[in-house]
């Protein structure tokens, strides 16, 4: 067991480095209004966050992450470009399923983080290099990806809007996505919507149902998606390579899917910018599907640093979350990229070394 004090001092080390990198330290509240977090993250967060009640403010949540309060504070009174850093506890329930875990994870742990609000295309590389250099002594497995690449590939499929929207929406839910894609590859059998005597009930209106039925009827006339498209998508989603070798592979895929060419250019430029900062790309893995199973609001560059320990979460992770600022900004959007390190895990690795 590493004493909490030691984890705290590792965290302070990262915080100091983040300050040196230009971060303004912020200290968001421990108790946050639950509503906006629940609306953003849905039931996943309710299962994992501690919710309590305040007689006046209503449902409050023990801080489950820093990103949302930092973005909210920035959108209220920040100017760009802005760099923020923080160190503090986050709280996550470890709800077990049928059995108790052998090594239960901490329910409160430190996060040291850095968030960068900037329209500079170099911001991704700046952030990644900052994390990479801080973590370099630990020999972690570095992986990167880009959700924008996948989103562009799906957006460009020759599909009617309704089908494309459904696929885009479920890109973070791999099973549902795969089933949808398989279904779109088959001829559709027209559905029947049997009449019922039941009176209309509930908030969903009859109009909403009629619109969906019309959409499904229109969908029944759609020709199946040619198999070549799901093959191309499969190839793209399965792409994994050392980052120094990935650009030609991506360019190759872009031959068949011209719509991803701009994203490929973006990725190539980012990789170059990372290499220019002295990072050996051959030791970084590019995984096209990296980020698909993480936070839904990462919609561009993503990265993670993992230790070779069974059952451990990533030691550090982050990404670009422009979509989150769009949701929280109610129409206003600020390009944003950020990441966190778990100092507790770093302290364990350093203690074991």
């Amino acid at each position, binding site marked *: 067991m590493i004493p909490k004090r030691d984890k705290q001092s590792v965290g302070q080390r990262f915080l100091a480095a983040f300050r040196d990198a230009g971060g303004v330290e912020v200290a968001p509240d421990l108790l946050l209004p639950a509503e906006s977090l*629940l*609306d953003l993250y*849905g*039931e*996943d967060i*309710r*299962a994992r966050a501690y919710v309590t009640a305040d007689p006046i403010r209503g449902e409050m949540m023990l801080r489950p992450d820093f990103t949302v309060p930092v973005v909210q504070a920035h959108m209220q009174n920040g100017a760009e470009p802005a760099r923020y850093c923080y160190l503090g506890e986050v709280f996550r329930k470890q*709800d*077990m*399923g*049928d*059995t*108790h875990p052998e090594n239960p994870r901490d329910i409160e742990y430190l996060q040291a983080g850095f968030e960068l609000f900037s329209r500079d295309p170099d911001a991704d590389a700046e952030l990644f290099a900052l994390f990479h250099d801080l973590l370099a002594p630990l020999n972690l497995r570095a992986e990167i990806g880009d959700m924008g690449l996948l989103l562009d590939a799906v957006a460009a499929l020759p599909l009617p809007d309704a089908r494309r929207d*459904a696929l885009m*929406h*479920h890109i973070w*839910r*791999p*099973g*549902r996505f795969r*089933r949808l894609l398989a279904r779109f590859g088959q001829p559709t059998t027209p559905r029947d*919507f*049997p*009449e*019922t005597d*039941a*009176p*209309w*009930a*509930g*908030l*969903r209106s*009859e109009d*909403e*149902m009629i619109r*969906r*039925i019309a959409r*499904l009827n229109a969908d029944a006339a759609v020709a199946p998606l040619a198999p070549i498209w799901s093959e191309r998508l499969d190839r793209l989603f399965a792409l994994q390579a050392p980052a120094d070798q990935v650009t030609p592979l991506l360019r190759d895929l872009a031959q068949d899917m011209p719509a991803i060419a701009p994203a490929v250019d973006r990725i190539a430029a980012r990789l170059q910018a990372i290499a220019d900062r002295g990072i050996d790309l051959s030791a970084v893995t590019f995984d096209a599907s990296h980020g698909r199973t993480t936070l*839904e609001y990462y919609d561009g560059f993503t990265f993670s640093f993992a230790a070779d320990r069974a059952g451990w979460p990533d030691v550090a992770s982050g990404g670009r979350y422009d979509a989150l600022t769009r949701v929280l900004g109610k129409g206003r959007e600020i390009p944003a990229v950020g990441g966190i390190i778990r100092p507790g895990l770093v302290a364990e690795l350093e203690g074991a070394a």
Partner: protein
Amino acid sequence: MIRLGVPSKGRLMEQTFDWFADRGVTLSRSGSDREYAGRVEGAEGVSLVLLSAGEIPRELAAGRIELGVTGTDLVREKLAGWRDLVSEVAPMGFGHADLIIAVPDCWRDCRDLDDFAAIARDFRAQHGFRLRIATKYHRLVRAWLAEHEVADYQLVDSQGATEGTVTNQTAEAIADITSSGATLRANNLRILDEEPVLRSQATLFANRSAMGPEMQAFLTQLGAA
């Protein structure tokens, strides 16, 4: 001493008494119907504790009773990591009920979970908040929907009269226990065409740390060892 927790009223209590009687153990309430004390005949070292069915999982896990009769639904909902705490000694063959998701019967475009997921997405876009499912089985329903990759919904707590929430517009769908489906139909609700979230029945559970020779002997007598 083995403390046996049994639901304190209704059909569940009567059927539990019958189940034990078939195995030569007579359970009865002592004194009046209003008294929650019980008597055990036909078994040595066993005492009867009458409890609300909903409290039996917690009492078992806390070790305040060694055996308890309750539904699998309640054990799985209320005890995180239940397999490490209690063991299923014997399914008892009554109290059958399924935990299901039901939607308004007027939703002609909603047959299965894929429809439901699509409707939840539309609903969120249209109304600006997540489609609400009223339930008291938060953990079970959430885990099941996560496993099936359904997003865009939220659970709202309903500890009773759950079938009425849709009409009252406090929820768009419900997740609840049903045996015959009659209450659902009476409220113009229809079960999604899917395997239930859970098939539950009355079950005899034992606290895992109370499995000594005394317990073995009693379970053997019940034919459940």
